[in-house]
């Protein structure tokens, strides 16, 4: 399919912003949604809307079939062993917090170690800081190399037999670093620790295989992978999920309820208290169909090609610093000398180009980079090299503009 045909699937991209055709380079924050996703949710609300798992009536059955059908799509997409291992949540943050509350706080003890990296998003730091405070466990960080990668030797020297949990991102939302998750999981397991992976920036862009990676927990969001906001997934190995206590109690997740005690439903429903995110899950299912049509390997190759092109083009711009390793996912984070990233983003916005500026919910990483903020352009299947050309033009204009007014 040509880029033009892909873009036609995303009606939002066909508009002018501030008098210029929109160039959307902020998919790492949230991706745009194709017609098929929007229409799947519209059809659900127009024709099938009903609560799941309880109605005897026909609409209830249809809603349940679609909701559980979406779970099946997720299971196949990430190659989980069974749908019991796929829990629908509100998003990556909720998924990680579910592990922190339902697992870490019960299992960790004083003297235990939680191992993280300095490139983590706040969502994969704070739940563990809080769990450490609650249990008396300590936090340790795997040191990073100068290019923003981590080596397996560093992982080996940081993870010890006292380590009970390793929490690491698959792809950095700032540096684009792709971490060797399978190998890190192996090291964690060799030391008797579980591994929790933040997959918010990986699942939308590459093939992830739960059985091959051998992760214990894996979290991701629907809205960064062409799906709607408000839905995400927590994958967990069945044995661990069975061990875990639910985090939310109420309707939907119960088996028997008495006046003084209750029992829980089987997996995965014991973790889905309350009426679930039915339309969101259906939309996520449609997004998985959409992405699968292209093939995740093709999407990754396409994005990495754009990121490579962007690195080349931006390297030619005087006074521009690019952060992160050469080999990376589909994003480029940069700063222009003498121009604050917010100002860069405002000038680019005036040219119809949407980029993210700020600390990207990664303040410890900003400190490591010795900056307060950066600008980030992130790519998806609907971008191409021409978007990079527009970005480079915009950056040149920002430099000229600030050069003129200063």
């Amino acid at each position, binding site marked *: 399919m040509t880029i033009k045909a892909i873009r036609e699937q995303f009606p939002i991209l066909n508009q002018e912003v*501030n008098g210029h055709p929109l160039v959307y380079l902020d998919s790492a924050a949230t991706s745009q949604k194709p017609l098929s996703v929007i229409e799947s949710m519209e059809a659900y609300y127009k024709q099938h809307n009903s609560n799941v798992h309880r109605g005897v009536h026909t609409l209830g059955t249809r809603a349940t079939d679609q909701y559980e059908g979406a779970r099946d799509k997720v299971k196949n997409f990430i190659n989980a062993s069974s749908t019991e291992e796929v829990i629908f949540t509100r998003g990556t943050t909720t998924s990680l917090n579910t592990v922190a509350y339902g697992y870490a706080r019960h299992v960790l003890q004083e003297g235990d170690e939680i191992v993280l990296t300095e490139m983590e998003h706040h969502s994969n730091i704070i739940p563990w800081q809080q769990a450490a405070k609650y249990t008396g466990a300590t936090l340790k960080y795997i040191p990073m190399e100068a290019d923003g990668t981590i080596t397996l030797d560093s992982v080996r020297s940081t993870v010890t037999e006292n380590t009970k949990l390793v929490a690491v991102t698959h792809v950095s939302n700032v540096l684009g670093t792709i971490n060797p998750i399978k190998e890190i999981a192996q090291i964690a397991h060799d030391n008797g620790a579980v591994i929790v992976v933040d997959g918010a920036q990986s699942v939308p862009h590459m093939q992830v295989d739960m059985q091959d990676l051998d992760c214990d927990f894996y979290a991701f969001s629907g809205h960064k992978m062409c799906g709607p906001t408000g839905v995400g997934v927590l994958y967990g190995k069945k044995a661990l999920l069975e061990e875990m206590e639910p985090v939310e109690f109420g309707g939907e997740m119960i088996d028997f309820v008495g006046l003084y005690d209750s029992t829980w439903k089987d997996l995965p429903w014991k973790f889905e208290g309350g009426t679930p995110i039915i339309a969101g899950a259906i939309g996520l299912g449609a997004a998985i169909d959409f992405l699968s049509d292209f093939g995740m390997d093709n999407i990754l190759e396409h994005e990495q090609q754009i990121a490579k092109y962007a690195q080349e083009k931006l390297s030619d711009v005087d006074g521009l610093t690019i952060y992160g390793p050469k080999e990376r996912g589909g994003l480029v984070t940069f700063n222009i000398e003498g121009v604050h990233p917010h100002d860069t983003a405002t000038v680019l916005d*005036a040219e119809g180009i949407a980029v993210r500026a*700020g600390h990207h919910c990664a303040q410890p990483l900003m400190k490591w980079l010795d900056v307060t903020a950066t600008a980030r352009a992130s790519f998806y299947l609907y971008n191409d090299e021409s978007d990079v050309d527009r970005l480079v033009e915009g950056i040149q204009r920002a430099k000229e503009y*600030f050069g003129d007014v200063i």
Partner: protein
Amino acid sequence: MSFNNLDTLYRQVIMDHYKNPRNRGTLADESVTIDMNNPTCGDRIELHLQVEDGTVKDAKFEGEGCSISMSSASMMTQAVKGKNIEDALEMSSIFSKMMLGEDVEDVDFDLGDIEALQGVSKFPARIKCATLAWKAMEKAVSADEEE
């Protein structure tokens, strides 16, 4: 939007304050120090305010941030120095109105350079950059009163 519209945001006087900030630095012990940041973007200001007999005797700031937040801090310190607390707070409320796009021409104060920030109201995403220093000033004043 063209570069002409950008000019309503990045006025010459703003750039001047950004590049040559007034009152940058710290004050000695008798001042109140307030740290404030904009958690969504990482902009940070450390404001030192010296209040004596209900008057702002001196104001200095340190910090990191974009052209709008840093120029606004520079202008704010310049504006409140020598004013009594009541007037300083009144100016802050005028500034808030200005950020909401309200007309502030009939106010009793000479807004001076601050008026240059009027264009920020047309850039909703940047309003918080401009108000950071003023929020810090309000907090410093109330912290001083508590002492």
